[in-house]
């Protein structure tokens, strides 16, 4: 990339992407609860209201179903709405419009419309917000043909994937982990896109492949650094897109490392890890496996309030280190 690069937080990078889109395309509007003068529950929209005014930075009432549906209707008729859910958990109130309408409209209407709506979902645990404000529901959306689902993990990708989502004619759901909002990283200035549907190798390694999503990417990288000291070289793949999954990238890596671990925060059962495991089992990489595939995921429980329990409910670095060590050294 040619643009100058500076350091921004993940939240600032998303805001910058929205500002670029609002600046260059009159059709773009941002809608959501308390995204105006309040700046959004996580201060992602921030000062956009001052720069673009209330006609384009639209505070909605607390009406997730209606608000999401209005965004869908506006997308079908010529706008490019970005709809922010205050917490991804509140998408449960709007599933009708997302799953029955946005995802299916193009198909049901035989291709006569597109639904270029972008929805943003602050997701995940670790903030002490308990069971109804901490879920990781991205796999639900990944199960619906018609939707695209991304999970950026760096400020650079948060900006690039949002701009890619806005250029995409189909509905794109962006899951943003709340613990990432304040993390900082290099972000190119100006407009650029990060491709939807492409995983990214964050660390090369010969001994074991870890596919991680969301905040688990940084935990997997931390684990990889610890294991490097023991002579175990871990390859870390940031999945980035949940639907469509970049199967070739994972297959290629597993063929080199012969070992696969998947780490995500969402509940393990029927999760993204299960899907990736199955894809590897069905692929040419299966013959290269030297050990059973390992899945690390959220516990079979709602997210608890107590901080120790909350930590115990989702994978943490020591658990990832132990699982990878066992996997790489043939102890499982």
């Amino acid at each position, binding site marked *: 990339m040619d643009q100058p690069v500076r350091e921004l937080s993940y939240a600032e990078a998303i805001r910058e992407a929205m500002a670029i889109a609002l600046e260059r395309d009159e*059709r773009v*509007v941002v809608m959501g609860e308390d995204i105006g003068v309040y700046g959004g529950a996580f201060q992602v929209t921030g000062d956009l209201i001052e720069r673009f005014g209330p*006609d384009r930075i639209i505070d*909605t*009432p607390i*009406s997730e*179903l*209606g*608000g*999401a*549906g*209005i*965004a*869908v*209707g*506006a*997308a*079908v*008729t*010529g*706008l490019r*709405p970005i709809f922010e859910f205050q917490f991804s958990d509140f998408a449960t109130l709007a599933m*009708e*419009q997302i799953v*029955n*309408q946005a995802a299916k*409209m*193009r*198909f*049901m*209407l*035989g*291709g*006569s*419309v*597109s639904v270029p709506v972008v929805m943003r979902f602050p997701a995940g645990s670790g903030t002490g917000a308990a069971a109804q404000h901490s879920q990781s529901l991205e796999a639900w959306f990944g199960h619906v*043909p*018609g939707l*695209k689902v991304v999970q950026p993990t760096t400020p650079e990708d948060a900006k690039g994937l949002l701009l890619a989502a806005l250029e*995409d*004619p*189909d509905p794109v759901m962006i899951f943003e982990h709340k613990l990432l909002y304040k993390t900082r990283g290099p972000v190119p200035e100006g407009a650029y896109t990060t491709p939807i549907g492409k995983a990214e190798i964050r660390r090369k390694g010969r001994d074991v492949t870890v596919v991680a999503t969301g905040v688990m990417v940084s935990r997997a990288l931390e684990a990889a650094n610890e294991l490097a000291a023991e002579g175990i070289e871990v390859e870390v793949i940031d999945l980035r897109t949940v639907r469509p999954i970049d199967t070739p990238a994972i297959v290629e890596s597993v063929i080199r490392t012969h070992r696969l671990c998947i780490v995500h925060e969402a509940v393990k059962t029927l999760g993204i890890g299960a899907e990736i495991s199955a894809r590897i089992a069905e692929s040419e990489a299966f013959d290269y496996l030297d050990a059973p595939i390992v899945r690390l995921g959220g516990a079979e429980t709602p997210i608890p309030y107590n901080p120790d329990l909350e930590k115990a409910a989702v994978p943490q670095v020591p658990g990832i280190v132990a699982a990878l060590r066992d996997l790489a050294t043939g102890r499982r």
Partner: protein
Amino acid sequence: MGREDKAMVKKAEAATGADNRPFLFRRHDAGTIREAYRKMLLIRAFEEGAENAYMRGLVHGTMHLSIGQEASAVGVGLALRDDDQITSTHRGHGHSIAKGAEVKRMFAEFFGKETGYCRGRGGSMHIADVSKGNLGANGIVGGGIPIAVGAALSARRLGNGKVVVCFFGDGANNEGAFHEALNMAAIWKLPVVFVCENNGYGMSTSQARATASATIAERAGAYAMPGRTIDGNDLSAVAEATEDAVSRARNGEGPSLIELKTYRWRGHSKSDRNRYRTKEEIDHWMTENDPVKRIEADLVAFGILDEAGLDAVRASVAEEIEAGIAFAKESPSPDPADLERFVYTEGA
């Protein structure tokens, strides 16, 4: 009005020079009125044709027929410009026809054919014709209501002067989507008209058992918009109320709610064994309050068509329906190799 009353009105007009005819006949020329009547007949004949095709095993799935509700679809359509938009319901065949859809492509969709409005992917419950402003029927009760408000947000933001009509039934007025969407349409003063076709029953549950308020129109009060209850089988009254609401919307004065009282002659869908209403009730609506017979009487009374003229329209409608069914039957089915087409936008 009975026929004699109408004759007296005409005489009185001749004496005073005042035009006391119903709104429809004052507002629209004879050609437009004849076309509206033809659309009502076309809706009824389409529904009868669809039902017949189903009985003969030519189509699978289900259908929701709007026989008895023709005046509401056509009366609303009379108040709209070609580029105005609508969202429709599972009982949406009439809305499509009123908004200018061709019956042959509707039959083709109903038959699941590639030449249908949705290339056979949607079926009866998803017929849309975006080129005519019909954003589509909807299989989810209340599902189209927020979408209509979103279309109205687009219209305002893009400054294209369009008005959106949102059709829904009495059953939908108890969905959360109805309340959320009406509230937002009102706080943002969007150019949308909410048209409730109240046929008395949400599937088997009567309005009295399902809705706390005596009318659906009075729910408008909670959202600070005008709400009116209209005889939905009176084409002229529907056209007049809709025109008022549409001009209000187009002038930037915000949304309105119109409740059109009507009745569906057939069951909810093909599974309906009709255990929740009496034969007397159905017969009453069919014999005493048939919207088609009512407009026919007016057409004759006000000299728009005579009996021979009515017959000619009936014959031309029957011909169009027959040709439409033939077109649907002869059309190709989608190729199973194209199963995944249209899930995503090609080339994206």
